[in-house]
């Protein structure tokens, strides 16, 4: 059976981040990236509702699971293979509000796809973010491959791949975990379990309560963690990364969380979720929760909070302005990059 979350996370009190080896500044950085992800997302909905952009898909509610796990990695040598909700992951790996807005408006400069893919389909070779398409689950095999290559070259590289609990039903996720187990690959399988796959509840998706229990069938540990507690996610991720670096193989981390918005701007979640349920989870907002912790820990003051808010507002304003003005691709870009040239 899977472990249920870490030890330090269970502690009460104001010392948790320090016990995890996080300085106050480091603890604040987690907070700011979570807030940045949220701020960009909220702005996108606003713009979408004004009809200035056709599509949004959200990270809201899942920022702790994303940032807490990504923060356990070393972006300069590690890789992430995210899915469409992982704004928090890619921002931690160096993407900017501007990058986000460029893809939101599908501009030529969009670093992920040059305006070819929907927002949320991240990718950047230099930032160690593998390009992601829409078919869910497929990316987990790519993560295993990236880790296999690193192992062949004896490089100290850990790969984190992300997916929803619904996507865990795809055969590829099984094949990826099995292969990673056989070769003891340095992979973190991070499941952001938000209880729904669009409208389909977990009860129709699997007959088990904890997806983490599947890890035993692949010969590596599975951990269930409170996905709305960024420090708890950081702790279990840090342990999993250490294990991977020791050559002991993969870990499946199941972060229990919730999606605040509809599945996307094309969805109406009132058809399948009770307003009460959503309201209940909004009270567990990972950002507010972490803010309370940081205030109790005397790390976050009103003035610091204000500075952060101002900084984020400015970033998002500038990014939006820049991206909305930025040039579109030209029609003759249509035929570019179907094939790579040269030796590649």
């Amino acid at each position, binding site marked *: 059976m899977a472990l249920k979350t870490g030890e330090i996370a269970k502690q009460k009190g104001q010392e948790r981040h320090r016990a995890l080896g996080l300085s106050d500044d480091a603890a604040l950085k987690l907070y700011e990236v979570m807030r940045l992800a949220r701020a960009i997302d909220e702005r996108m909905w606003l713009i979408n509702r004004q009809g200035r952009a*056709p*599509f949004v898909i959200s990270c809201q509610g899942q920022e702790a699971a994303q940032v807490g796990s990504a923060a356990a990695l070393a972006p300069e040598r590690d890789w992430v293979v995210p899915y469409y909700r992982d704004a928090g992951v890619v921002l931690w790996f160096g993407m900017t509000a501007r990058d986000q807005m460029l893809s939101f408006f*599908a*501009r*030529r400069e969009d670093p992920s*796809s040059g*305006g*070819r*893919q*929907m927002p949320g*389909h991240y990718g950047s070779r230099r930032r160690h973010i593998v390009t992601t*398409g*829409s*078919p*869910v*689950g497929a990316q987990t095999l790519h993560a295993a491959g990236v880790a296999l290559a690193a192992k062949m070259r004896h490089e100290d590289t850990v790969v984190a791949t992300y997916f929803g609990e*619904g*996507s865990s*039903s*795809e*055969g*590829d996720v099984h094949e990826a975990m099995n292969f990673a187990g056989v070769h003891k690959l340095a992979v973190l399988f991070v499941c952001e379990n938000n209880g729904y*796959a*669009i*409208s*389909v509840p977990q009860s*129709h*998706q*699997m007959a088990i309560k904890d997806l983490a229990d599947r890890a035993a069938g692949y010969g590596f540990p599975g951990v269930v963690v409170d996905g709305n507690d960024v420090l708890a996610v950081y702790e279990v991720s840090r342990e999993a990364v250490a294990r991977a670096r020791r050559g002991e193989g993969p870990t499946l981390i199941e972060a229990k969380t919730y999606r605040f918005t509809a599945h996307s701007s*094309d*969805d109406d979640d009132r*058809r*399948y979720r009770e307003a009460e349920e959503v309201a209940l989870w909004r009270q567990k907002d990972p950002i507010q929760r972490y803010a309370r912790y940081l205030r109790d820990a005397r790390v976050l003051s009103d003035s610091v909070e204000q500075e952060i808010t101002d900084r984020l507002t400015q970033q998002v304003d500038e990014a939006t302005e820049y991206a909305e003005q930025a040039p*579109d*691709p*030209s*029609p003759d*870009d*249509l*035929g570019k990059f*179907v094939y790579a040239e040269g030796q590649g």
Partner: protein
Amino acid sequence: MAVRTVIEAIREGMDEELERDPSVFIIGEDVGKRGGVFLATDGLQKKYGEQRVIDSPLAESLIVGVAIGAAVNGMRPIAEIQFADFIAPAYNQIVEEAARFCYRSGGDFNLPMVIRTPWGGGVHGAMYHSQSIEATFAHIPGLKVVAPGTPADAKGLLKAAVRDPNPVLFLEHKRTYRLVRGEVPAGDGVVPIGKAEVKRAGTDLSLIAYGLMLHHCLEVAEKLAADGVSAEVLDLRTIKPIDEEAILQTARKTGKVLVVHEDNRFGGIAAEVMAIIMERAFDALDAPVMRMCGPDSPAMPFNQILEAAFMPSVDRILARARELAAY
């Protein structure tokens, strides 16, 4: 006769088949409470229950593989793949299993099952919500592939598909769902699989299409008429088995043919239509058969300028048709 959109006609068709035959059931992602992401199954779970409108786990191979097993054991499943772009994980179950069940068992087994899926572009769906898959599956013996373009054909062909003893891939062009309205006959109004239809008669040249492109071609024919060019528009409706006679008839009648589809050009359905005409109506041709297709780049970018550049447009089809008329 009632006026319906394409999506309404499809929903009505499923509703009536569920009503008529207790062995019919629906399985797919979000087909239940959500009513499908395009609301094709809206209200059907309420009406027929969770047993007959099943929200599957998120796994396309599962959806098709389970439908196969259910069809073996006396049911007539309607499997929904949420977008044609996501049918790929089910490719093995469709091509190597469903399509070969009857043949490999010497006719002992057959699979009355339908796989419904929304296809095609023009909805800002980007690279994974815009693809065309008809050529890929029409190449496979043992499968039938239909692609209606009007509400009446959609409902009539859906009923034919549900009642067919073979696996039928039922392609619904998502851009037509709410865009295209039309009269739907009362009663079953079954439309036979394998029969194309001349949607507009003409004498100078032939436009052959299906799905959204049918409607572009009808518009083009209208504009050509203004130039005094009489264009015939043949709606294939069924891609496999293709209606060779109807294709040859229009080719022989006008001697000039333009085939139009969104799907990538190389190895698309247009190539097969050209081959058929080459083989059987070569001497009747007054000009080489032409094709206007999506380019050989992945369908299709999110950016609206690139999406527009990908899709065959009325203007570009018209230009090619004029070339052909002038040949």
